[in-house]
């Protein structure tokens, strides 16, 4: 525990230093609050609007978690399918790459037309943004088994499915988890994009939309919401790093720390 605290110290010191500089800058330069609220004003907004922010956060967190789940499932499934079928690789890969260039607002209207104002279109947007790193790392991980391994497995009379199950899938797991970590870091901004491109009828529209509403008139609250998003992304990232340790302990190099 003490060791963990010591490892976190540089980051904490850096953040505190930046906050102090920020506070001083706003104070000395006399920056308007609408342009850049001071840290103490943001903290105040966080405290005053805790209930509102929290309920919006709950909406966004659900979107991120479910959307990432969908992205992981889609990325893994597509990755395995592409690994097994060269035909599918040639057919699907260019499309998957192209999908990453599609500006979401273009399809936002269509998604709402298909699935309404609820959760589903948002999950689809997040999954669309996040599945790609999982797909690429899974495909590469599956292909990275030792070239002699298939020979050995064949002399043990392993079927294609058994080779996948006993050798290729576990070998690809660390890579796929790295992909998941990348997906996660874009997942939060993905939720923001989802909320701002597909309207919602819920009582709380989510933190992303709340931030967009606040940014012109309640800048401290917009920043407070941003702080929550950042904290959430960090928490998710480290949770996944822990999960990686549990799921694929053999891939953790003794000196290779997670950042």
């Amino acid at each position, binding site marked *: 525990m003490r060791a963990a605290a010591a490892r976190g110290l540089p980051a904490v010191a850096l953040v505190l230093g930046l906050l102090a500089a920020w506070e001083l800058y706003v104070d000395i330069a006399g920056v308007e609050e609408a342009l850049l609220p001071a840290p103490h004003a943001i903290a105040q907004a966080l405290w005053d609007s805790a209930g509102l922010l929290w309920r919006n956060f709950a909406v966004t967190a659900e979107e991120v978690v479910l959307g990432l789940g969908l992205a992981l499932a889609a990325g893994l499934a597509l990755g395995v399918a592409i690994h097994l079928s060269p035909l599918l690789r040639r057919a699907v890969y260019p499309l998957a790459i192209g999908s990453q260039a599609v500006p979401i607002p273009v399809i936002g209207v269509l998604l709402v037309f298909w699935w309404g104002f609820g959760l589903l279109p948002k999950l689809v947007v997040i999954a669309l943004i996040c599945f790609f790193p999982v797909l690429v790392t899974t495909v590469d991980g599956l292909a990275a088994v*030792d070239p*002699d*391994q298939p*020979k*050995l*497995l*064949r*002399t*043990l*009379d*392993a079927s294609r499915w*058994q080779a996948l199950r*006993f*050798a290729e899938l*576990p*070998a690809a*797991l660390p890579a796929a988890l790295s992909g998941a970590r990348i997906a996660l870091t874009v997942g939060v901004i993905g939720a923001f994009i989802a909320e701002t491109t597909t309207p919602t009828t819920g009582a709380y529209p989510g933190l992303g939309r709340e931030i967009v509403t606040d940014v012109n008139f309640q800048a401290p609250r917009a920043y407070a919401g941003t702080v929550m998003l950042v904290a959430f992304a960090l928490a998710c990232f480290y949770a996944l790093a822990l999960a990686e340790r549990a799921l*694929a302990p*053999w891939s953790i190099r003794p000196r290779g720390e997670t950042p």
Partner: protein
Amino acid sequence: MPSQLQSPARAPLTQVDGGEPIVLDGVSFAYRDRRGVPLQALADVSLRARAGEVVALVGPSGCGKSTLLELLCALRTPDRGVLACPPAVLMPQRDLLLPWLNALDNAALALRIAGWRRAPARARAHELFVELGLEEFQRLRPHELSGGMRQRVAFLRTLLAGKPVLCLDEPFGALDAITRGEMQEWLAGMLAREPRTVVLVTHDVEEAVLLADRVLVLSARPGSVCAAIDVELERPRLRTADRVIALRERALQALAQGSRR
């Protein structure tokens, strides 16, 4: 590590059916590059191995020894010639143990692939570990094992595949000299106890004489059998015994002649 050499009479741990010999008659094989240009790896190889015989293949680098094993394991089919071989399992030079499985589960992999459920497969592999005095290693992952231990686990995996023919591709090539000596003794004990037809590919002429009933010398590429040396010595064999040394010299001479061809 208790030497297995003291007790060759103990009951085998694994048993297989299949008393068929290995027969190769005029077998040739060529690799083709992308343009289809052939690279002749084996030319007109003929050899026979009785069921239960240990045959060592020695030859210069690139003479097609590993290709020959792949033919025996039905991983490739010959371009020409007749090949008859009972089901064979490969033990590659690198152990190829799966890093996420412990030693026990790595050895049990052969059984899992044969359709055994996890618990009985582990129990069966556990019997072998206990019988061979390797019990303390069975929970360790490959990166925690020494090179020799990894090869032992790989060999147990090969045995548990339950095939009458074992194809060992330079199994100790990557080990240091002392460990290699230990492993040769260990393998001699294992083969005395678990009778199989064995085709052992090696660079090491001494290893061939210590372990094999017959040493076949392959010529430089394209490989073909250029000498056959019967090793009619009782076991266990000592590397310092005069007759072992004499046979080793004979094999070395044949190897030198075949390499010059």
